[in-house]
């Protein structure tokens, strides 16, 4: 018992010793500090020790430490050797990091832990601690936040604040006893952030509060050094409320707020605002003792984000939290004001629009201005003394303000003030000098004329009265009309008051306007002056006289003829610009020269009596006679000079005819030609055209009717007179016929092509229909009674088929009676003796057509085997096949013996082609009379419908065996094939090797078997329905068959023909 009391006393003593040894307590002057507990082996880099200071330095300034010894009583072997670990816990001010030091003061009492806390041993533990007194001065709060949340996640985390509030700490010789410390409530959140609340009586706000923290985490109990604080010194008020911003009448931004409630002491405030506009981004902090702040230089269109916080005005304290940010956007009032001074320099009109700004409801706009004595400053600013100006809203949405009278050289600084109940805002000011924005009056007395003789467009004007400065001018002119194509001419000579311009058409009416502007570029262009028009008048003498031609009336044999001169009225561009009258100059050798005035007429008739008579037509206007004139000499001798060798007229289309001619060599050189044409069907007047003598071809543009006849005449014009013309009365025939032929060609070719296409289509359709009909007419063997249930695609079927029928039906009629073509080579063997037959395999291709009619495949071949070309009356196989199908027989004669000896049989491409009789589809030939024997050869003819059923590489016997094996293994789809053929199998006792017999020629064609089959193989491509099958005839089965193969297959006649030729080549 005594021992226990002793121990308790000892513990108390140790605790008191810890407190006293701590050299008083940690004064909480900063409102935020850090508690760090580190194992002894850990360096103090974390605390940023200044160079030269030891970590064992005692008597620390701003840092207090206690030691926490942790005893690990772990059951794990890993920590068995860690019996005791001492943690050093230090306070550190965040506001004074560099000066923070940690002293090794391990005199404190240790605390125990029974939990494995290697984490703490390795990295230590840190907490952020904030302590303050609330603004209501009633509640002291300490906020403890762990910086290593993850490590304590699974451990029990508790925080206790132990405090004592002694009356007067300084007067007490001893620190409070442990029992006098009270435990404050600490509420921890999920994020290991604990808030400890201590209620402080109002009377003790100035007293010293002693406290320390006991933190349990991960089974380790950390205890902070003792802290001391006077609550009144760490007052942290609530953030200000009611943040508000407005624009004052002076254009400043006023930020106002209200102090937090229940604050019993004056506060100071810190305002933080940032301005963000398109031009300026700035941040500022300002301290204010009042609850408002004025910010000048407010930019329109900027946004301001403001926050405010408060702190005790007198004495120490802690800044409150920032108030919630408040954003205020100033109105963008960048209003453009444009002004214009009138031409009399007495009035300046300024216009501005609010379309560019966002209108604010309830706001009014006012233009204010300030007039300086002279000129504008470089950077206009809003002057405190300004005058309003009445402006009136116009229909176009612009406000218009008129200054009258004006000070020409005074700067008018203007801006728009937006007045609103919340305040007023001014637009950026602009300064206008009335003298610089003058829009002059347009030049007056503008005149335009085409000058006589020189032929230039002369424009004259008078300057406006104002301004007195030098002016530049712009002249625009163009042909008068509805839509004038203006040309601009600029005059920079201020003294010039007229200008002459070249124009292309001197006899047209031009419209001219002039405007002006200050020469220095200031101000605006004046309006265009009133238009001035030129007057068309004679500018010069006519450039030339009219072109003229003549019509000669009267008897050609007579020497006196009436000559009528014709000419076209002279155009303005030639007459410059009018013709008052025409004058005819006559010149004859006898009567000399005389003139006749014909006025404005364009026709004149005179009597041609003399050998030569020269006339000239002159055009006369107000200026004088035409300078260059045409003349024409009528001369009897010259009228017989013919230099035009030929003349051709080619109609190009209804509006153009090409006229070409050829000249013969002559001593006379024509000056020009006159082409004259007229319609012969109507009494149209003569049309004529003068062309140069160098031209050999001429395009005449007129309205030509193709069915009418025209007369074209070509007159050579010599110096001495008019020559003999070349006259044609119609267009050149060759060309017409050619065009007609061409036209016929254009019609006929499409007709032929379309007919050909139609014919092909008809043939194709008829072919399809014929094919369908023919195949319908061919009896289907499956429908026969004897063929019911048989699969003709299987070789065994045929064997059974014929065995079956030998009992009831004689074999011969089916195999057709062989004719005595060659008694030596064809031996028919009955089925009864098949076992005794010489195993000879002969494959015969048996034509079944009427051989006499020369149709069919093989027969044709043999008919043509006389080295004649194919019969002329024969139709190609494809054509025949369209008419009639017919069955073809094939005999497969086996000679096993020979086949055994002959092992050099190559692969045989046996093919089956469609063979049709051209005239008769009845079977004519028997097996023997048209067969040909091949030594040790097998020619197996199958339909191409089953090319895959029979292996193309089967030897004959093996192939048959294979085929037998394949019985019943035919694919189902093959049974559905429509093209069925019969296969007859027979044997031949006696073979006739290398002999081929034709039915007509009865010539034995002997040829080696390989050639035949090689050729046949070569022919396989020419027949579209060959099936490639290879058999080795050298190995024959012991069973010998006499094959019989009536087939519904067609073969190209051409193919057989070629084969025939090949065969016969071998016989020669």
């Amino acid at each position: 018992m005594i021992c226990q009391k002793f121990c308790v006393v000892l513990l108390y003593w140790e605790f008191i010793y810890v407190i006293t040894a701590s050299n008083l307590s940690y004064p909480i002057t900063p409102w935020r500090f850090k508690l760090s507990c580190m194992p002894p082996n850990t360096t103090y880099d974390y605390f940023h020790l200044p160079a030269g200071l030891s970590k064992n330095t005692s008597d620390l300034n701003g840092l207090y430490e206690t030691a926490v010894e942790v005893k690990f009583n772990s059951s794990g072997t890993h920590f068995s050797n860690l019996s005791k670990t001492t943690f050093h816990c230090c306070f550190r001010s965040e506001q004074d990091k560099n000066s923070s030091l940690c002293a090794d003061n391990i005199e404190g009492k240790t605390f125990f832990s029974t939990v494995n806390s290697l984490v703490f041993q390795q990295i230590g533990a840190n907490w952020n601690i904030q302590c303050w007194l609330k603004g209501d001065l009633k509640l002291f709060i300490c906020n403890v936040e762990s910086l290593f949340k993850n490590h304590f996640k699974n451990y029990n985390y508790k925080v206790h604040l132990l405090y004592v509030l002694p009356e007067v700490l300084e007067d007490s010789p001893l620190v409070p006893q442990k029992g006098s410390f009270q435990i404050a409530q600490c509420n921890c959140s999920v994020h290991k952030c604990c808030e400890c609340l201590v209620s402080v009586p109002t009377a003790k706000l100035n007293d010293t509060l002693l406290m320390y923290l006991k933190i349990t985490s991960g089974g380790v109990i950390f205890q902070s050094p003792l802290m001391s604080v006077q609550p009144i010194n760490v007052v942290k008020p609530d953030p200000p409320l009611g943040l508000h911003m407005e624009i004052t009448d002076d254009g400043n931004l006023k930020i106002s707020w209200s102090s937090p409630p229940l604050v019993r002491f004056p506060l100071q405030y810190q305002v933080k605002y940032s301005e963000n506009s398109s031009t300026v981004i700035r941040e500022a902090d300002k301290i204010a003792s009042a609850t408002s702040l004025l910010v000048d230089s407010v930019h329109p269109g900027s946004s301001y984000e403001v926050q405010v916080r408060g702190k005790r005005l007198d004495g120490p304290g802690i800044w409150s939290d920032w108030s919630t940010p408040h954003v205020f956007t100033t109105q963008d009032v960048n209003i453009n004001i444009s002004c214009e001074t009138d031409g009399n320099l007495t009035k300046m009109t300024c216009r501005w629009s609010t379309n560019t700004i966002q209108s604010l409801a309830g706001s009014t706009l006012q233009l204010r201005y300030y007039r300086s004595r002279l000129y504008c400053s470089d950077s206009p600013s809003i002057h405190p003394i300004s005058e309003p100006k009445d402006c009136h809203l116009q229909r176009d949405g612009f406000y218009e303000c008129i200054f009258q009278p004006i000070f020409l050289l005074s700067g008018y600084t203007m801006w728009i003030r937006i007045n609103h109940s919340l305040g007023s805002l001014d637009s950026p000011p602009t300064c206008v000098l009335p003298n610089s924005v003058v829009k002059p009056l347009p030049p007056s007395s503008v005149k335009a004329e085409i000058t006589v003789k020189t032929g230039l467009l002369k424009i004259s004007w008078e300057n406006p009265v104002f301004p007195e400065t030098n002016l530049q001018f712009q002249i625009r002119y163009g042909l008068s009309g509805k839509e004038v194509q203006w040309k601009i001419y600029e005059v920079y000579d201020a003294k010039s008051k007229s200008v002459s311009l070249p124009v292309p058409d001197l006899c047209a009416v031009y419209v001219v306007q002039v405007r002006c502007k200050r020469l220095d570029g200031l101000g605006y262009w004046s309006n265009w002056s009133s238009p001035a028009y030129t007057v068309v008048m004679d500018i010069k003498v006519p450039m030339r006289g009219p072109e003229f031609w003549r019509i000669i009336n009267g008897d050609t044999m007579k020497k006196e003829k009436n000559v009528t001169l014709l000419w076209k009225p002279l155009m303005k561009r030639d007459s410059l610009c009018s013709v008052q009258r025409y004058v005819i100059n006559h010149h004859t050798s006898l009567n000399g020269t005389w003139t006749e005035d014909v006025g404005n007429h364009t026709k004149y008739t005179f009597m041609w009596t003399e050998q030569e008579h020269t006339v000239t037509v002159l055009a006369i206007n107000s200026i004088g006679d035409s300078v260059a004139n045409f003349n024409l000499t009528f001369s009897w001798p010259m009228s017989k000079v013919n230099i035009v060798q030929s003349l051709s007229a080619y109609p190009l289309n209804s509006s153009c005819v090409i006229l070409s001619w050829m000249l013969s060599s002559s001593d006379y050189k024509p000056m020009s030609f006159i082409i004259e044409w007229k319609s012969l069907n109507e009494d149209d007047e003569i049309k004529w055209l003068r062309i140069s003598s160098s031209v050999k071809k001429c395009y005449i543009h007129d309205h030509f009717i193709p069915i009418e006849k025209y007369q074209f005449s070509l007159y050579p014009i010599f110096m001495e007179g008019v020559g003999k013309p070349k006259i044609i009365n119609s267009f050149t025939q060759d060309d017409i016929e050619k065009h007609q032929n061409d036209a016929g060609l254009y019609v006929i070719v499409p007709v032929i092509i379309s007919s050909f296409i139609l014919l092909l289509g008809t043939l194709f359709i008829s072919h399809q229909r014929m094919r369908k009909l023919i195949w319908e007419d061919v009896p289907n063997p499956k429908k026969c009674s004897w063929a019911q249930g048989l699969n003709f695609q299987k070789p065994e079927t045929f064997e059974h088929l014929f065995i079956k029928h030998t009992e009831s039906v004689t074999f011969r009629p089916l195999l057709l009676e062989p004719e005595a073509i060659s008694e030596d080579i064809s031996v028919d063997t009955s089925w009864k003796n098949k076992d005794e037959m010489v195993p000879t395999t002969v494959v015969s291709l048996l034509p079944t057509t009427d051989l006499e009619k020369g149709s069919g495949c093989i027969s044709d071949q043999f008919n043509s085997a006389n080295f004649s070309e194919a019969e002329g009356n024969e139709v190609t196989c494809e054509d025949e096949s369209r008419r009639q199908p017919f069955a073809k027989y094939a005999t497969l004669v086996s000679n096993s013996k020979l086949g055994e000896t002959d092992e050099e049989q190559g692969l045989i491409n046996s093919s089956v082609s469609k063979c049709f009789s051209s005239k008769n589809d009845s079977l004519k030939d028997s097996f023997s009379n048209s067969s040909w024997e091949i030594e040790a050869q097998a020619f197996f003819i199958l339909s191409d419908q089953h090319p895959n059923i029979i292996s193309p590489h089967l030897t004959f016997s093996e192939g048959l065996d294979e085929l037998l094996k394949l019985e019943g293994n035919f694919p189902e789809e093959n049974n559905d094939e429509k093209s069925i053929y019969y296969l007859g199998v027979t044997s031949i006792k006696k073979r006739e090797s290398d002999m081929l017999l034709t039915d007509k020629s009865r010539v034995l064609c002997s040829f080696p078997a390989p050639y035949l089959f090689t050729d046949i193989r070569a022919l396989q491509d020419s027949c579209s329905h060959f099936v490639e099958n290879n058999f080795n005839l050298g190995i024959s089965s012991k069973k010998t068959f006499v094959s019989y193969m009536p087939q519904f297959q067609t073969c190209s006649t051409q193919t057989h023909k070629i084969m025939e030729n090949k065969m016969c080549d071998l016989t020669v």
Partner: protein
Amino acid sequence: MRWGCLCRFLWLWACLSYTQAVPIQRVQDDTKTLIKTIITRINNLSQMQSVSPKQRITGLDFIPGFHSDLSFSKMDEILAIYQQIVNSLPSGNLVQISNDLENLRALLHLLASSKSCPLPWASGLETLANLGGVLEASLHSTEVVALSRLQGSLQDMLRQLDLGPAC
């Protein structure tokens, strides 16, 4: 005296600081242009009749007449008198001329300051206090004579500006 110098200096400084960016050549051109403008304005007045500036008219001696040699100060003094007279005339269309005269005087002061000529603002004639009586007696004549002589004076100034007036 000291205050006067100070005021003169301040005025000069104010003028120079405000219009320092304006080239003096432009000021001269604007001055001549403005003189021509005023002359043209007077010419355009419909009731304007030509009166010889040398012709003496009894009772209108206060209107400045012909001066051969004009300094800046004299010009300003003459213009101040004319401005005073024009402002007194009831004709509405003379307000623009009065404004032009004010601009012209400011330009002359600017020119004078550019040549370091101290040029106080002339206050006009004190004897014009009884101008109202004169105008009542002969309004039209006063207007005609005043504008005619103003036109002549402006032409004199125009010539003098080309020669380079003294301070």
